[in-house]
Structure formats: structure tokens, C-alpha cells
């Protein structure tokens, strides 16, 4: 099992969700986050006063998938979240040791 964590631009959520649903990913957790990478924020000007906004709004998507599906999931997230502009985000994949569905007590791949 793998945990795929993707940091994406907020307006790309629907595309990413549709693409993941199409390959059989049935659930996801989405969190509103702020951060920066090479994009280094942007400058805003209010009545002449300039402010550098370092932390830009992003979405953090977490999906737990079987190991076989992980590569495919990464591929569709990459394709659907890409704009080609700086700040498109990142994807991290980590192993999951154990998983459990709270309602039924099913474990590991049955719980995904």
C-alpha cells in the first residue's frame, strides 16, 4: 500500500479528482494549506505599500492506494494538475505499514 500526497493548485482539484476516480481511486482527503517552493510567493501592492506574500494557498490531497495503483495515480495527478507554470506543486509517495477501516474493522488492502 502507498500513501500518495500531492500539493496542487486549488483550481485543479476537480480535474484531479475526476482523473483519479476514472482509474478507480474511490476516496481522498483534501486539506487547504499554504506554502511555497521555487515560486517564492508574489508581491501585492495596497495603496502603494508592497507586501511579499510568501505562503501561497494550495491544496494537499492524500490518497491511500494499493502498490500496483500508485504509479498510475501519480501519473494521472501529474497530468491533470499540470499547467506548465511555476507553482504547479509536488507529489510524494510513501509506504503504508498498516490500514484499518474503523466501521468494519477490515484491515490493509480490504480497508482501502
Amino acid at each position, binding site marked *: 500500500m502507498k500513501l500518495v500526497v500531492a500539493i496542487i493548485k486549488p483550481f485543479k482539484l476537480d480535474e484531479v479528482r475526476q482523473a483519479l476516480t476514472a482509474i478507480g481511486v474511490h476516496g481522498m482527503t483534501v486539506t487547504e494549506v499554504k506554502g511555497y517552493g521555487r515560486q517564492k510567493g508574489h508581491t501585492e*501592492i495596497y495603496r*502603494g505599500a508592497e*507586501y511579499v506574500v510568501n505562503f501561497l494557498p494550495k491544496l494537499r490531497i492524500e490518497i491511500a492506494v494499493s502498490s500496483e495503483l500508485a504509479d498510475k495515480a501519480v501519473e494521472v495527478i501529474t497530468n491533470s494538475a499540470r499547467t506548465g507554470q511555476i507553482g504547479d506543486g509536488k507529489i510524494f509517495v510513501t509506504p503504508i505499514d498498516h490500514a484499518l477501516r474503523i466501521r468494519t474493522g477490515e484491515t490493509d488492502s480490504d480497508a482501502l
Partner: protein
Amino acid sequence: MGVLSRHAARAAVTFSIATLFASPVTPALADTSGINAADTAWMIAATALVLMMTIPGLALFYSGMVRKKNVLATMAQSLAAVAIISVLWVAFGYSLAFVGDGPWLGTLDRWFLAGMKMDDVNPAAKTIPEALFMLYQMTFAIITVALVAGAVADRMRFSAYLLFSVGWFMFVYVPLAHWVWGGGFLATMGVLDFAGGLVVHLSAGIGGLVAAKVMGRRHGYGTENLAPFDLSLAVIGTGMLWVGWFGFNGGSALSASPRAVMAITATHLAACAGALTWGAIEWSTRRKPSVLGMISGAVAGLGTITPASGFVAPWHGVVIGIIAGLFCFWACTSLKQRFNYDDSLDVFGVHGVGGMTGTLLAGVFATTAIGGTSGLLEGNPQQLLIQFYGVAVTLLWSGAVTFVLLKLVGAFVPLRVSLQQEMEGLDISQHGEALQ
């Protein structure tokens, strides 16, 4: 005997208190032919419109421009101004400003509206009930006091703000209103100020500038991100101010008349021209017209046309709005940076500079066809000099009295919250509430 006299004394006190608080506006069946129903209806509407300018208008406009942790505290300042100034206006403000025609101050004949009957009229507005004229003018006093708070947003202690507001109302607003509108020495000289370029905008603007200097800059000014919390609130607030300004300037005709319509037309055009001008400057110099810029331009246009609105032709509103956009933009960006003062919400840059500019422009564009007075363009340069005099008096009086008041209040209560409270936000530290 002693008991009897105590009873008598108590009865006398009870009677006098009852007389004081019994509604002095008593029903009367006397002749009300001077009172005009159309004028009265319009002025009731105008009064409501101007009251709407403070809460929710100014409260939203201001609180949208501060940080999230200071939103409620900023709204509280507008709300408190409505509550306090209304009571003080009825108690003595109205009487001192608009009853009697001494050069410096009116009289206390109408304190607590003493003796005011339902069909009484004020000589300044003979076709509407005096109580309505009193209420209408009350809304001006309220918004003027509330305007000043924008300069010291994010850092003034609420208790100090309350004391300062009471003092500022008593010693800056009331005398100025009398001098310009109540038959005082500026009125006698012929200073033109239709709806408050001097009394409202310049006095609040210069008061705000002095307060900003005395209070010092906000923690993190120039180094930290002090960006507005929610400009959408400020846009909604601007819309309410804009609509409310129809009552502000249109109502200042004190009648449902063609002059009121001319004033409203010029007002609307000035707001539009101001918004377009500020936006255009930003577009050309910074590649994007900001929303804050466009609403700032609109308010600048509104503030600048205010003193001139009942004296100039509608198209002058466009010219005055463009000049307002140019001058106020320069004041809020270049001038402010050059002198390095922290007027948090640009009360001086928008209202002070706008009020001053508009008052002078009234002396330039005034036309006899609208207000019965000619300005520079109609061959009366004298009017422009009189306008300069009005500006100078307002600048000096409001500036000096604001300074003294702040020093006085500061002797009793610290003017600023502590650094820790400022970092935490005024909502929690001053009011025990916060937006989640």
C-alpha cells in the same frame, strides 16, 4: 416641617428630572403650513442614508482593510461613534452648533431639545421639522468622528478612543459645524461648504493625520505584511457609502428640490471619475488596476465633490472626480511614503486631501445658476481666497485641538495598546471576541 420640605424638595427634583426627560417634542395642532411634506419625506430618507454610511458603510469599508485580528475592534469604533455622538448631539451638540448665531458658538437654548415642539423649524431649514434637521445633522457628526478612527486603526486602546471621540466631538466638530453652517464667522464670510468638505472631511483628515503622528506607527509597519483582511467587505462598504452619499450631498439641499438632484448627479459623476482615474493610474504604472485602488478613488471623488456639490454643475463633478483621483493617489502613495507616517487607512490621504481640494475647487467652479454664488471661472477670484481661508482655519483648528486632546487623554489612559496586545489583535485584547 422638615419632613415636608424634604418631600417638597424631592418632588421638585422629580418634577425637574421628569421635565428634562419627558419628550419635549409634544404633539401640537398648531399651524404647520411652513413644513413641506415632500421636503420632510426626502430628508427622512436622507437622514437614514447618511446613518447607513457609518454602520454598516464605514464599518465595512474600514474593517475590510485591516487585518483579521482587528476587524471587530474597527467595527466597534464606528458603532461606538453612533451611540456616543447621538446622545451628545441631543444633549448639547445640536444646540451649540445650530441654535443661535454667535461668531464662535451657538447657545444652549435647545440642550436636550428643550422646548422643541413638533412643528418647530430651524431657520436654516424652514420647511422640515426642527427635530428632523437635528437628526440629519446628527448623522454628519457621527460619521465625522468615526472617520478619524481609520488613521489609528490597529493600535488605539478602546477606552482612549472613547475619551478622544467625546473630546474631539466637543472641541473640533461642534465649533466647526457652527462656524461653517450654523451662522458662525466662516459662514458670515461666505465660505462655501455644501455638505462638509471642511466640517467633515478636512477636519477628520487632519485630525487623523495628527493622531497617526502622535500614536506612532503600527508594529511591523514597512516590514511585515499588513495586507487587508478582506477587500470584499471594503467594496461592499464603499457601495453603501456611495449610495449613502446621495443623502449626504443631496440632503444638504435640505429640500426635495432641483438643487438636491444637481448635487446628487455631480456626486455620482465624481465618484465614477475618481474610481476610473485611480484605477487608470495603477493600470499604467503598476500594470494592474487594484480593487482597493478603484474603491479608494471612488471615495476620494465623493469626499472631494462634497463641499462643491450644491454649487457646481453636474459635469464639474467629472472634472473634480479626476482631480480627486490624481491628488489623493499621490497623497496615499508618494506623500505618505515621503513623510513616513502611518495613517493606517489613509484618512488624511483620501478625506483630508479630498476635502481640502474640493473646498478650493468649489471656489473655482461655483456657478450662480446652481448655488447662487460665482467662483473663479465666473470671474469671482475673491471666492477662492475665502475658500483658502476656510481651509486654513480648519487645518489649524482641527490639527491643534486634536494634538492637545490626545496629550490630555494620554495623561489619563495610555493611547496605545501594549505591544503584546497589538500582536495578538485588538479584537481579543479590547473586546474579548474574535473572528474564527
